């Protein structure tokens, strides 16, 4: 909250200095290179759909019970909720009147047709890297496949003066460096395809890269070690996608990554939390080649040495759990509530029920994801349209804050895990700021 306020004020100052020039600048729309494009023959609908799936627009521009792409999803911003917009081809309330050039300015430059600046909740800093061809495919998808829905956009709940949008023009200059993705000639085609997907369409950094003082992703490509180094977003901790051994993808092979993004599971982890939207609607539909490319690129990102708690499996926990004296309250709770699925050895049950021993999520110094998944469960994985048979139970009703804290603390300090303890206060904060997941299959599907 405070940080964002600071930057608005900071920029107000800048404005006074720059004065009129600034006024002129913020009201000048850049030109879209696609303004010139004459060819209006729509792309093949399947290619167009695939690009839309890669970009996962649906996850943010739909609500569970609403019509696809009609918008209305509340996004947490430090200043209060902002709502995603109607991007169906409806002429009054959607983007039905957008030309390809208008569409391009919104997607790659964060400027709506009427000239107002989009909040960076819209990942246009990533989309800025889209190729002209993919932008056109996206445009064709929205214009020719998506059903128009007449639904007014919800105004943001951000109070004045912070609801002023013109400062974003400067934000864009600073953080949304223009420019289509430029292949790195020193790397092979697979690496470049992976980099392109991760940095642009996949916009992985939107969740997995730390945000700066003014809500900006601190890095947009591998040139910085902070890129995809893990971040806290929407009460979930998005883990590092870099090479750290335990918190990151260090132990994962490229095949592990592919299987995770395709099936929702691998020997180390299972999709849950806010990754569920990205998985159910996007990664599970990706082609094998694209997934391999993504895996190949991610494995090329070195781990951050300061970010690697060491972990070695320790079976003394098994002995504690089977002894007739359980020393910690967490141990008893584990026996009652977790043992059946995750095992006395904390190794889980095959790929469907993930291990807790050595799990990056569990080892993370930030316990947000552990607490959140204990409170609200894992949600329902839907791999390629098929709902998963296994689901992490939400314990928000069954267990009190202290019990969840004890349980989390036990899990984080067993089988060789060595993450800091969790307090009831931390649990309460998350309990109050999160909602239960339901067992219902929520598919913001484009079917």
């Amino acid at each position, binding site marked *: 909250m405070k940080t964002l306020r600071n930057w608005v004020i900071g920029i107000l100052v800048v404005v006074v200095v720059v004065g009129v020039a600034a006024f002129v600048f913020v009201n000048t729309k850049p030109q879209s290179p696609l303004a010139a494009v004459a060819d209006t023959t729509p792309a093949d609908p399947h290619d167009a759909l695939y690009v839309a799936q890669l970009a996962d627009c649906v996850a943010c521009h739909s609500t569970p019970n609403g019509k696809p792409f009609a918008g209305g999803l509340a996004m947490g911003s430090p200043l209060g909720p902002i709502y995603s917009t109607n991007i169906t081809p409806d002429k009054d309330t959607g983007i039905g009147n957008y030309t390809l050039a208008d569409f391009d300015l919104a997607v790659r430059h964060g400027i709506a047709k009427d000239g107002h600046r989009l909040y960076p909740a819209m990942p246009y800093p990533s989309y800025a890297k889209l190729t002209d061809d993919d932008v056109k495919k996206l445009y064709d998808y929205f214009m020719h496949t998506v059903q128009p829905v007449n639904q007014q956009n919800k105004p943001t709940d951000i109070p004045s003066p912070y609801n002023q949008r013109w400062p974003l023009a400067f934000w864009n200059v600073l953080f949304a460096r223009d420019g289509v993705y430029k292949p790195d000639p020193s790397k092979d085609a697979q690496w470049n395809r992976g980099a392109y997907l991760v940095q642009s369409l996949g916009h992985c950094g939107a969740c997995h890269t730390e945000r700066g003082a003014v809500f900006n992703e601190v890095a947009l490509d591998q040139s910085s070690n902070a890129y995809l180094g893990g971040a806290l977003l929407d009460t979930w901790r998005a883990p590092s996608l870099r090479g750290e051994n335990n918190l990151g993808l260090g132990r994962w092979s490229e095949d592990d990554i592919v299987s995770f993004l395709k099936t929702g599971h691998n020997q180390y982890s299972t999709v849950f939390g806010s990754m569920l939207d990205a998985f159910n609607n996007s990664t599970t539909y990706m082609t094998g080649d694209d997934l391999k490319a993504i895996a190949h690129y991610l494995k090329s990102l070195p781990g951050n040495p300061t970010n690697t708690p060491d972990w070695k499996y320790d079976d003394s926990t098994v002995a504690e759990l089977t002894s007739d004296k359980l020393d910690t309250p967490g141990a008893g709770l584990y026996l009652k509530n977790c043992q059946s699925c995750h095992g006395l050895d904390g190794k889980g049950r095959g790929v469907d029920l993930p291990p807790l021993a050595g799990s990056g999520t569990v080892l993370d110094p930030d316990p947000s994801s552990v607490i959140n998944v204990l409170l609200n469960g894992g949600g329902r994985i839907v791999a390629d349209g*098929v*709902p998963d048979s296994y689901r992490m*139970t939400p314990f928000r009703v*069954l267990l*009190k804050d202290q019990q969840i804290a004890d349980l989390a603390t036990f899990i984080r300090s067993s089988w060789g895990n060595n993450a800091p303890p969790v307090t009831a206060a931390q649990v309460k904060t998350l309990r109050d700021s999160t909602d*239960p997941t*339901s067992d219902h*299959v929520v598919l913001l599907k484009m079917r």
Partner: protein
Amino acid sequence: MNEMLKGNRRQFIVSALAAGGAMVVGPRLALANSEAQVWDKDVAPANGAAEFTPWLTINPDDTVIVRVAAVDIGNGTLTQACSFVMEELGSKWENLIPEYADPNADYKNGGVYSKPGSLLAYFSGRSTNPDRASTYMLAAATAREQLKAAAAQAWGVPANEIVAKDSTLSHQASGKSARFGEMIAAAAQVKLDGDPKLKDPSEWTWLTKQSPGKVQIPKIVNGSAIYGMDVRLPDMVYAALRQSPVHGGKLVSYDADAIKNMPGVLKVVAVKPKANEPTDLKPPFPFGVNPAQEAVAVIAEHYWQARTALDALPVVWDDGPGAQWTSTAKMNQAAFDAVSKPGEKVELSQGTVDDAAWKAATKVVEGTYLTPFCEQAPMEPLNGTALVTKDRVDLWHPSAHTQEAFYVAADEAGVDPKNVYVHQPYVGGSFGRRVFGDDSRMVVAIAKQFPGRPVHVIWSREEATRQGRYRPLMAGYLKAGLGADGMPTVVEGRMSGGPGFYATGMADTAFTLVTPNAQVTSQIVPFHILQGPYRGPGYNSNAFFVETFVDELAHAAGMDPMDYRIKLYSKWADKGWVKTLTEVRDKSGWGKDTLPKGQGRGVAVANWGMGGKPDEGTTVATVAKVEVTKAGDLKILQLDVAFDTGKVFNEDAVRAEMEGGTLFGLNMSLNEGLNINNGQIVEGNFDQYPIIRMADTPANVNVHFGGLTGNARYNEVGEPPAGVIGPAVGNAIFAAIGKRIRQTPFRTQDLTWS
């Protein structure tokens, strides 16, 4: 005595014998997984066996098939039926084999099984129903006398010198003896003149003396007992279903193509069960009380395939008017508003309730109460299996009312009842959920769209929980004026709930009936949520309202809540109320010690089944001892229960029901409450709808028998204990921390103190 037994019993037995011959139910379908089931034995007598009335068949090996027209939902009806026979027949206990009476045979033979016990015949309502008891005992005594007569003839000795015991007939003087099995052929031919005289209860050696355990337990402990969920038939397929998340909603469309290629999927069907259309069938309960909802179902080779495909099936519903109930708070408010003034229906009006009456009172007390929607949640999720062909229906259904299921199946399939066969498996609990047959209707409605193969329809737990027939959301309002002695002189009571809620327990109970001036009204609120019986319908809410209120009156009168009740209920003609109270007072340690702050005892007393009359139904008084931490955590330390059913046949069976009913009612009050969001039920499974476990249960539920008045009504025991435990705990909480809890579940109430 029931119709068939009155006057012409001779004719009853004879006609029944004739019927017996005709009573072959045609080829039973063998179960793939049976080892013969008690409920699936062919009703045709085994080779050389003799039918002694439709109720008893004795086989050459001395085993006796006892036909039971009351479903055992865990309450021991199979065992109790055998006990009645045991008392009069002179058989060995282990020779008695209970078998569910076939509603098809009943239909073809003039209601031979369903008449004794009327509406509740074929229902687990009450195994000790007097008509049933006498029917079994007369049937057994008749068979015994026929056996003795046959032996007398064979041995040339007087019948009255022959003793029937341990499945053996013996004549001391001549030293002759024979097994029952050796005499059945001759005995079946014997015509007795006049009815055998039944033993006087004082001569009973089994009833009231022995407490046999449930006869099916040996099958339960090795997993061989076949519940509805366990039925396996050759060629069987499975179905998973989904109904409108908003009750009363309509199925608009679904995209079968999206799942048609998923493994095992055979068919996707839209289900529009018959609404209450005119019919000449005469079911025990009119079909109107058990409508089934529109649904979509996926039929597959295996259940998990059906379930997975269903979850992946895109379905569009039209929510209908129910969606207006956007939140639980909104519904609670509507229920409260409805009791803010007198209701439209007058349930009781005695004396004069007017300003004068209120003015005359030295003190006026009032309270408003609420109990939420609750789901019976039997451990066996709803399910059933049906094989429908052009002209025949076979239904294997864990029903709590086999006869209702029989008529529902005939109606839904449009098949002549003569060709409808209901096979009754064991039932994994009902608590009211499986009585009216909406589940049987759904099963047949799905199966008839896949004729020729048995379809096993299984509700997921989430589906069962969200598509219930719930204990209604009810609000209550009570206002009383006290006289100089602290006793109520005038009372006004109001209650409200959704359409068809049960009013039992406020107008027809001792509290209002002993108050000189009393007015009770009720008001219906147009909720869309479907409702049904739930262990002690109406009573389980009203007992909470009334007995919490009585506690508030005791407090206002400055009297000990126990003394106050004893004084109040001594005005009531039924001595059982005071007797159970004094029993539970003496056994629970009430008033014998002073408890630290944070601990307290509470008492409540109520009666299920009295219908406004003394010496009817079953009275239960419960004392709960609880502890509440400053943080507001509630712990149950001790429970004492005394009751008056008049008398009991099987002490341990009654004790078990008192324990179970008390813990069921405890959970109802501590934990249960369904929430509504945009017209939909929120809770789906035990993670959101908590049930007490071992660790939440006090070490013992102490059941005391000193409250029995000795009146020979042997009344029921399943529902009564569920109503009083809640108010007892609520009153204990007040005693412990001084907070008056007027709403359940207690789990959601603020119990913190300092």
